[in-house]
């Protein structure tokens, strides 16, 4: 049965990457391709993802941090210098501004001489999960769904090999989703997109099968890899079922679930980080084992990403892991090895039935958009996540090196401290701003004005913003200008947080002790301990901040949850106006030093320098020391999984500040 001649060709092997500048990222991409990577996966920085130019106040500290900054056509041309776009397959993790980055990509490809029908790749373009987990949304749901469907309608017609949308269950699992929620919410999301496209005048009725066939998914794979195999199989079955029953499609090829995977980051630990190498390999196995439900493309995170930005060597290890799986093992030589397995079939059937019911529940309440607006899905995720963290705290779930088997010899892999991760040079931001300003002076203002007028018209009156965006790209419109034009037209949006009414509440001896301590300190303060939880900068990954907010409420604090995308100035103003006793910040984008130090300065200016500040995030030891020196009272990183303990320490921090007669005067 097995034979080397009949070896399947492997999935697309990618590494999610990009940082600092278009030029630095271009060099990285070309190096990765030379090492045998077969596709590109572009990570954009947060200003690009949320539609701000590098010199916007909200972009401060974020430029080039979690990805490459793309401010205009010249950046895009540089990014793909010497990379032939007529042959490359490029995945772009871009959502709220997907139509714009697609336009820049198309414009850059046109300048290379590539034809539209040659272009292959993916725009993530999945806004629902941005509201639920990732946080880089900009516009209200209705306008966002319209932009999403603009990209779908345009590419189905003009760039037939493009995957216009990659429905992400990935981020749902990162936000705490169970496998059933992951399947159900992703499917409800896809149905919402298909319904939006089906309702358009410019998409022919008969084209829905073609649209269905172009929709792809982006899944997560956790460490429970047997269940993950079943999840992939259940999802494949449910997708075909939806295609047949809801959209009347019978073409088997169109009905086939196509998905890519990035394996789980949620389960990667900062403690004993080398253990992650094994976790990643096992997780990769989960989504490649079953031939009938095998991923089309795979990205593996770096083993040390909970510590900071991975180095090229760390990324190479992830790439080699994939290559060993694809080329050394006999994985690709067999038909589906689970066909006929009662065990796998039974678990798959269970997941399928539960997911179908949960999906129906969402559809019954008006679909995925309604379930974002009424916070149903968000609340469900926050609750699942709370349960998971509680299970880790209690030891019910074992995480090796974190809550079990913690004894360890020093790891030689991280002995070098700060040199075992990449730090983005602060200079990158300044240089990007300089390039942007030079670019602005080079372009023809009249062309820009015309292009922006055309864009506004297309946004307000339709039918599709993509052609106007491509013209704007060529004319030299910047990312901030493109998004501002649409913000003027559509407005902005803040998604429900799901923390307000979460029904999971804690109990137990440890939490009771913290509650008593909160009562006692509150009594001394004269009023109940009030904490502000917020996220400065553009990072929208709010799962951690939400869990902290829920826990703080559970131990008896009054919690002002200030949400995402705030400037240090705004957070300080909130803290002062609300009269809080302590400020808790969460920053995962790597911009913690700049943002926190700005914030401390702002606190001095606004007269609340005496309120203690605690910070959580992916913060390397050296930076933690720097923050402590600047006045931060506590720094928490992913290894601090015990939220009850964190809360006990927060109370101490408040009590200490009070002992000096300071906090919350």
């Amino acid at each position, binding site marked *: 049965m097995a034979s080397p001649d009949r070896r399947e060709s492997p999935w697309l092997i990618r590494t999610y990457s990009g940082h600092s500048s278009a030029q630095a990222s271009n060099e990285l991409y070309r190096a990765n391709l030379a090492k045998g990577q077969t596709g590109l996966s572009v990570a954009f920085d947060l200003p690009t993802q949320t539609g701000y130019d590098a010199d916007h106040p909200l972009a401060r500290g974020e430029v080039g941090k979690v990805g490459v900054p793309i401010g205009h056509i010249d950046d895009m041309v540089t990014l793909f210098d010497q990379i032939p776009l007529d042959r490359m397959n490029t995945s772009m993790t871009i959502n709220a501004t997907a139509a714009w980055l697609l336009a820049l990509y198309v414009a850059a490809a046109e300048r290379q001489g590539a034809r539209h029908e040659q272009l292959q790749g993916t725009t993530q373009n999945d806004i629902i999960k941005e509201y639920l987990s990732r946080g880089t949304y900009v516009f209200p749901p209705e306008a966002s769904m319209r932009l999403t469907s603009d990209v779908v309608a345009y590419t189905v017609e003009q760039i037939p090999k493009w995957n216009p949308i990659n429905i992400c269950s990935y981020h749902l699992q990162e936000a705490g989703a169970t496998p059933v929620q992951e399947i159900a919410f992703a499917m409800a999301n896809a149905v919402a997109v298909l319904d939006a496209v089906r309702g358009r005048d410019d998409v022919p009725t008969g084209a829905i099968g073609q649209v269905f066939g172009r929709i792809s998914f982006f899944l997560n794979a956790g460490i429970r890899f047997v269940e993950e195999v079943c999840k992939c199989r259940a999802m494949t079955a449910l997708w075909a079922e939806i295609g047949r029953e809801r959209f009347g499609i019978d073409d088997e090829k169109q009905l086939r679930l196509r998905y890519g995977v990035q394996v789980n980051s949620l389960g990667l630990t900062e403690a004993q980080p080398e253990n992650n190498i094994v976790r990643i390999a096992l997780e990769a196995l989960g989504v490649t084992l079953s031939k009938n439900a095998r991923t089309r493309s795979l990205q593996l995170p770096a083993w040390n990403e909970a510590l900071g930005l991975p180095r090229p060597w760390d990324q190479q290890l992830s790439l080699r892991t994939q290559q060993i799986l694809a080329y050394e093992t006999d994985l690709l030589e067999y038909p589906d090895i689970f066909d006929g397995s009662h065990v796998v079939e039974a678990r798959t059937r269970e997941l399928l039935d539960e997911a179908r019911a949960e999906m129906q529940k969402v559809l019954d309440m008006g679909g995925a958009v309604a379930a974002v607006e009424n916070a149903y899905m968000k609340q469900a995720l926050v609750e699942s996540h709370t349960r998971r963290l509680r299970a880790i705290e209690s030891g019910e779930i074992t995480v090796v090196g974190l809550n079990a088997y913690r004894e360890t010899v020093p790891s030689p892999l991280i002995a070098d401290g700060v040199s075992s991760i990449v730090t983005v040079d602060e200079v990158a931001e300044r240089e990007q701003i300089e390039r942007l300003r030079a670019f602005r002076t080079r372009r023809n203002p009249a062309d820009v004005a015309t292009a922006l007028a055309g864009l506004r018209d297309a946004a307000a009156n339709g039918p599709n913003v993509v052609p106007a965006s491509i013209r704007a790209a060529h004319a030299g419109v910047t990312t901030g200008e493109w998004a501002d034009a649409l913000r003027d037209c559509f407005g*902005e949006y803040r998604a429900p947080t799901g923390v307000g009414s979460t029904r999971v509440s804690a109990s137990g001896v440890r939490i009771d002790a913290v509650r008593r301590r909160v009562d006692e300190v509150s009594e001394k303060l*004269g009023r109940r301990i009030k904490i502000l939880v917020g996220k400065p900068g553009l990072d929208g990954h709010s799962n951690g901040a939400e869990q902290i907010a829920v826990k703080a409420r*559970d*131990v008896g604090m009054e*919690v002002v949850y200030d949400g995402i995308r705030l400037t240090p100035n705004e957070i300080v*103003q909130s803290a002062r106006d609300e009269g809080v006793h302590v400020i808790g910040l969460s920053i995962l984008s790597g911009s913690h030093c700049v943002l926190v130090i700005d914030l401390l300065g702002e606190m001095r200016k606004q007269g609340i320098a005496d309120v203690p500040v605690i910070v959580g995030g992916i913060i390397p030891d050296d930076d933690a020391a720097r923050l402590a020196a600047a006045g931060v009272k506590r720094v928490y990183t992913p290894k601090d999984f015990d939220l009850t303990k964190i809360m006990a320490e927060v109370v101490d921090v408040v009590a200490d500040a009070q002992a000096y007669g300071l906090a*919350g005067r």
Partner: protein
Amino acid sequence: MNESEAGDLSALLDSLAAGDRAAIARALNLIDDRRPAQRESALELLDRLVSLPRFERARRVGITGAPGSGKSTLLNALIGSLRDRNEGIGIIAVDPSSRRSGGALLGDRMRLGGSAREQGVFLRSMAARDRLGGLADATQAGVCVLSAVFDWVFVETVGVGQSECEVAQLVDTLVFVAQPGAGDILQFMKAGILELPDIFVVNKSDVGPMAERTRGELIAGLGLSDERREDDWVPPVLLASARDQVGIEALVDQIETHRRTSLASGRLEQRRIAGSIAFAIESLVRRYGEYGLERIGGLPAVERSVERAPSRSPFRVVLEVGRAIERALDGK
């Protein structure tokens, strides 16, 4: 209160009168502070605030309604409209506390988004604490602090019955926000909620006929009410869409009209006195118990004190009656 504290208080008062945000925040911290010395200072401060000239000018508006009715979005739209006229706005937003832990998630700053951060807008979130379904105990004092600084003071709270009564007593105009959809109305009527609000708004009118129908049901429900309001005010039932910025100006107009009418009829005065009495009794009972209150002649004595007090300041009354109770309890 010693001399330096008195000096601090004067300085705080001056900064408040000048509209200094840090001072507003400090004053709100102080009135929320339960320690005895701070409580004294707070009452002193409040008593002096009440006599500030601009205090009477502030329009106090309660915004209440079931969860999900769109109170925050409506308030957002109101803020936008009032800011266009350059009016200063103070907001107290009340969220329920967890009965189990005593903690609370205060989400209004997030829900109000950008408008809570605008120049000329000040938001303080408060937890309802032990007041089940009711207001934070510092709400009334908070309204007083903000009234000394801003042209408009809003109190936003989830409406579930009891809180309506409490809010009604401390604002000039109570706005009830309903969302389109049948069924609710019957619940409102059962709960007796429909008797208190001065203005009804059916929000989300962008959903179409459903909003119209809900408005019709509300009007019919109000018509069925046995009791005619003693002030002869017929509560208008408005349609609005905070999303599409429709009906917001009409709402502002109605709030102004209601206030003018009740000021002219003397109703506003009565309402404020009733609110002051309720506050005084509530504070005294919390501190000294029913027994303590009986020592100095019970509720009627408090009522008389409030009516006699300069500017009818309930805070002065709480201080003075409180001292009287302490003397009585000490048997002096």
